[in-house]
């Protein structure tokens, strides 16, 4: 037996050892996912590809073609673990995870081919993914120069290359026309990711330009990758603004400067370049050659560069002489609208006050545009018909190099009535007194009327007058109800005890509620009131002023049996006592009192007084 056991144990150990020595074939599980399957063109989508690999530590995860997206950021992590199995054999388990932040570039359905790893000649792959990119046709195309696109790496103007990092100032138009938008962008190129907030110590100067910021006041710095000079850089967007040159000639955008604190290891990535723990860089100035607007075909007037549409309207086409009307001219389009001037209306007999100007600017796709609204108060000083406008502004399109005219058609203002100067609007109807010698103004007339042929005031309608009777009528009904009650009580003496009994039942119910709420004072007051009301109704006289002995005597006189009278007076005494020393009264006592009161009420209900006492 012992020999058999030893053989079996040896066989088992051998089998386990041989199993541990056998290396399993490497395998992997590859998954790929996105945080949303439908996005709009230009939106951000996060792609996660992960491979869990058993038995191989140096495998690579191949990602699908991402040419339909801009890769904004990429994170790669490769945690792995070693496990030692029975018999000393090791098992490798590793994970490769790629997290990419992508921006959809084109509208349509994009299919991502599976991500995969190859292990020992075998391919392990994920499922393919489909992403629907929505948006209007013509939305950002791959070839469009998007605002966040980086400047080409082949040109090195506006920068001084440094392998650790440098500032780069980029302008999208080196030879603009006067008034044409030049988009200026300042980038920070760093060889390593930035882990702090850079401080711009010197803003780029813009003398000779009218400037409009294009970036929001607060935003996060998200880097993009670009290779320059054979070295990969993290590129950060620091500044972007639209600059409109105000005059022809060479204009310079000054060099920016930046400082980044290195202390505490927050930015400990460079060995030199700054002292005292601060890394600093200064950029390069950029000069643009501004061209005059072409004279060929140029209309007369102060021009606008970009695109423009004009609209004009009067708030009233007919006014009394001396009344003011509001003329509104709205200019909408692209370009330096805040520099736009529209000449006001002129005319003999027209007084035009200084305009009120309002701007509503926007920068969609980093192009400055919006609306500029001019409002004039126009006062016709004499009766007559006044043409207002037309309003025209020459417009130069710098892309096409052509001139055009933005135009709002002419309006007509009709003024009628006596010549008068406008007077102040009175604060109230009683403040209309006209000063001695001041002009008297009538009108203008109302141009809309209901032309009603009947004057109906609903306050003179019969139903409205009838409503007045409602109050007195209700009061009268109330009086009648009271009278009827009293009369009923007089006619039927038995009615009073019945009513008192019903009232007592209600009081007992209320007392039960007080008992449940642990309100002994209210409880005993309700019990006492219920008993006394019924007794008074039976005896047909008040008993509130009687002492308890007097009450006992009265009950005896009216034929109440001694037991009932005694219990009644005792209970009333108990209530009195409990009301004034209610502390410590238990719910059980109140419940018991409630039962006794019910019994007393039944007794009183059966009690028939033998005779009335003297009034």
């Amino acid at each position: 037996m012992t020999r058999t056991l030893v053989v079996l144990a040896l066989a088992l150990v051998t089998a386990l050892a041989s199993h541990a020595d056998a290396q399993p074939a490497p395998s992997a599980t590859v998954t790929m996912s996105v945080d949303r399957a439908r996005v709009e063109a230009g939106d951000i989508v996060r792609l996660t590809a992960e491979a869990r690999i058993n038995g191989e530590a140096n495998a690579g995860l191949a990602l699908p073609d991402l040419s339909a997206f801009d890769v904004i950021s990429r994170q790669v992590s490769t945690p792995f673990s070693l496990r030692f199995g029975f018999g000393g054999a090791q098992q490798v388990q590793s994970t490769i995870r790629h997290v990419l932040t992508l921006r959809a570039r084109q509208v349509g359905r994009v299919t991502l081919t599976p991500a995969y790893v190859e292990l020992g000649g075998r391919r392990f792959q994920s499922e393919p993914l489909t992403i629907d990119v929505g948006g209007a046709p013509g939305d950002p195309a791959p070839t469009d120069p998007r605002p966040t696109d980086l400047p080409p790496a082949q040109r090195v103007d506006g920068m001084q290359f440094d392998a650790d990092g440098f500032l780069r100032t980029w302008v999208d138009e080196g030879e603009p026309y006067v008034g044409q938008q030049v988009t200026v962008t300042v980038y920070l190129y760093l060889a390593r990711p930035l882990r702090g907030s850079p401080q711009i110590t010197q803003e780029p100067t813009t003398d000779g330009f009218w400037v409009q910021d294009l970036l929001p006041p607060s935003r996060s710095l998200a880097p993009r990758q670009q290779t320059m000079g054979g070295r990969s850089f993290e590129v950060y967007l620091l500044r972007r603004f639209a600059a409109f040159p105000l005059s022809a000639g060479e204009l310079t955008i000054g060099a920016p400067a930046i400082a980044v604190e290195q202390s505490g290891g927050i930015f400990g990535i460079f060995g030199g370049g700054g002292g005292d723990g601060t890394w600093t860089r200064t950029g390069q100035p950029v000069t643009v050659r501004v061209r005059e607007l072409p004279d060929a075909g140029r209309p007369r007037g102060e021009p606008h560069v970009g695109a423009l549409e004009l609209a004009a309207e009067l708030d009233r086409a007919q006014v009394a002489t001396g009344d003011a009307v509001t003329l509104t001219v709205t200019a909408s389009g692209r370009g330096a609208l805040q520099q736009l001037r529209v000449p006001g209306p002129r005319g003999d007999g027209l007084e035009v006050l200084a305009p009120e100007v309002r701007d509503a600017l926007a920068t969609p796709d980093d192009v400055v545009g919006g609306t500029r609204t001019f409002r004039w108060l126009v006062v016709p000083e004499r009766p007559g018909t006044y043409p207002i406008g037309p309003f025209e502004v020459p417009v130069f399109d710098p892309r096409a190099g052509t001139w055009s005219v933005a135009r709002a058609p002419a309006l007509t203002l009709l003024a009628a009535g006596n010549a008068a100067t406008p007077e102040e609007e009175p604060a109230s109807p009683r403040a209309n007194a006209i000063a001695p010698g001041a002009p008297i103004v009538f009108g203008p007339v109302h141009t809309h009327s209901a032309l009603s042929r009947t004057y109906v005031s609903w306050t003179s309608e019969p139903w409205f007058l009838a409503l007045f009777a409602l109050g007195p009528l209700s009061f009268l009904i109330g009086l009648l109800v009271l009278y009827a009650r009293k009369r009923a009580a007089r006619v039927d003496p038995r009615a009073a005890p019945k009513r008192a009994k019903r009232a007592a039942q209600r009081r007992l119910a209320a007392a039960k509620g007080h008992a449940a709420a642990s309100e002994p004072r209210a409880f005993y007051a309700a019990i006492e009131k219920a008993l006394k009301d019924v007794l008074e109704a039976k005896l047909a006289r008040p008993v509130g002023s009687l002492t308890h002995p007097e009450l006992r005597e009265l009950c005896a006189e009216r034929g109440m049996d001694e037991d009932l009278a005694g219990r009644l007076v005792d209970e009333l005494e108990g209530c009195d006592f409990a009301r004034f020393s209610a502390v410590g009264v238990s719910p059980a006592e109140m419940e018991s009192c409630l039962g006794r009161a019910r019994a007393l009420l039944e007794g009183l209900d059966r009690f028939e007084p033998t005779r009335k006492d003297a009034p």
Partner: protein
Amino acid sequence: MRSIAVLCFALAALPASAAADSLEEIFERANAAYFRGDYEGAAEGYRRLVELGVVDADVAFNLATAEARRGRYGAAAQFYERTLWLRPGDADAHRGLDAARTALGRRLAEASGEGEVDTAPPLSEALLGGVGRTTLAVVTLVTETLLFAVLLGLLFARREAVRLGLGIAAPLLAVVALVAGVGWALRAGVLEDGEPAVVVEPSTPLREGPDAHAEVRHHAREGQRAWVVDRERSWARVRVPDLGEGWVASEHVGLVRP
């Protein structure tokens, strides 16, 4: 048979439709005349609307304005008053009425060296300001109903606190109801002796009787307030404050209310 009925119905409806169209046209033509500066034509158009039965504050206002533009300030005052009766608190009408009275005063001053202008508002106007009839009527109704509800509550309420509250509320409500009711009555002209009117002709004679040869007692100024207390043929017996009563030709006074 059915076709005949439809035809009859259409024919019956035709005059009303035509009249509605013509009212619009008259109004538009009168407005156009006003803006052309033809105030006489404008006033004629608006007055035609009034004669056709239009009872409208805008038409009354326009007629007042057109009359004022042509210098008939008495008629202007009459129709500004009518506008205010139809639409109490109308700021334009208040302004126009004051302007018409001022113009009357200046004209009188130019003619006689001194001018007296009837600027004191009627009693109801002085007491109630811009509060309209409708507002007063509603306030009266609400407070009266509340008052009787409170009295009803006093009949049945047993709790002392409730009775005390109701007892305080009742006299307050009674006072408010009384004031609002009196104001409403004043505004509605219940307490007035006669129909309110305005003298529309300059120096209108107040005669002893309804006859052109009757003795003249006084002369009323254009724009003066008056109350028509009686009528006989084409004559109206009017009461003019400070002057007393007398008979005037009906066309020399204009009623404020339509």
